């Protein structure tokens, strides 16, 4: 490494909705993630810092924070790829209430998930025959393309429509609704289409595509939402939904 710096200056958000950025100097190492840096601060410099993480390896989504203005998984963000001139600014995820420091209240995110009917509605019991779902059927391909969401909240934090429209259900909830709309086993699609066709539903999306740009799982909620727009419009024109 040609950079002779041995230290990194990090600004971390301290407080709740009101607060300020506080600076810390941490040792700069060759292989270092943003989560390593936050952990170092909490363990060695300031035990009062609050933050979330779990798996540390990019499968749980708990460590998502705003890093130099963009929402990212901090455990999968190398300091060398984001630190500008040896500086980093880390804050909690946007568009969610801040509990303390780097930890946000994820409840609005999950409540909207429920409002979008993002939960599977069974149509059979254990006594019925199992549905044969072909993995190469168009519906299953569409569902599979969107199914790997781990609810990290990055898309929700990146979305300006979420920021501007408090009713908007958001990319993750709508993306999940789309996977269920394409699930042949699901019995709840009439209610689900109605749920995503009201104000704050899929039609509020302007296709900025910030969600797709930031999703660490390379999902495309904009495409899922476009699918929902087509389905709900068709259902409306057939008189299946009232608006």
């Amino acid at each position, binding site marked *: 490494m040609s950079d002779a710096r041995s230290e990194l200056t990090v600004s971390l*958000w301290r407080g709740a*909705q*009101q*607060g300020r*950025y506080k600076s810390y100097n941490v040792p700069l190492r060759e292989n270092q993630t943003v989560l390593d840096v936050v952990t170092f601060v909490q363990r060695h410099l300031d035990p009062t810092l609050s933050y979330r993480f779990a798996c540390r390896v990019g499968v749980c989504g708990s460590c998502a924070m*705003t890093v*130099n*203005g*963009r929402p990212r998984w901090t455990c999968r963000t190398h300091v060398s790829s984001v630190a500008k001139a040896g500086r980093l*600014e880390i*804050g*909690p995820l*946007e568009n969610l209430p*801040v509990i303390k420091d780097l930890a946000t209240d994820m409840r609005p995110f999950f409540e909207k998930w429920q409002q979008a009917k993002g939960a599977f509605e069974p149509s059979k019991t254990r006594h019925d025959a199992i549905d044969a779902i072909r993995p190469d059927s168009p519906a299953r391909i569409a569902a599979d393309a969107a199914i790997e969401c781990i609810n990290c909240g990055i898309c929700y934090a*990146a979305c*300006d429509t979420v920021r501007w429209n408090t009713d908007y259900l958001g990319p993750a909830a709508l993306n999940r609704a789309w996977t269920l709309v394409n699930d042949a086993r699901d019995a709840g699609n009439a209610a689900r289409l109605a749920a995503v066709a009201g104000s704050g539903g899929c039609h509020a999306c*302007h*296709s*900025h*595509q*910030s969600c797709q*740009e*930031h999703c660490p799982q390379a999902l*495309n909620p*904009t*495409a899922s939402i*476009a699918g929902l*727009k*087509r389905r709900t419009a068709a259902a409306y024109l057939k008189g299946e939904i009232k608006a």
Partner: protein
Amino acid sequence: MTTRRLAHRTSVLWVAALVHRLSGLALAIFLPLHFLALGLAIRGEAQLESFLRWSDQPLVKVAESGLVFLLVVHMLGGLRLLLIENLDWRDGQKEFAAAAAGISAVVALILLVRMF
């Protein structure tokens, strides 16, 4: 309050969405004025003629060219949205958005040249 500097607001698609929104707003404000000007004709062609002569001023011609830019860029941006929403997903969104801006500028410039 937490930082509002969202770095992605410089991305091409975000700017395209902003241009689409602002051009729509500008056109919506312009339209009543446009209709009022045309409505002058109801009082006889002399009224409309004097308005047309007023609009011969260079600054007005530049403004008209600007309005055509706004109209075409809004239409092409809207076309991009209609394609996203109604067809299978395509890559190349950024290229389409950039091309839309480019085409609109060219159309507006050609018009400007014709008017002088």
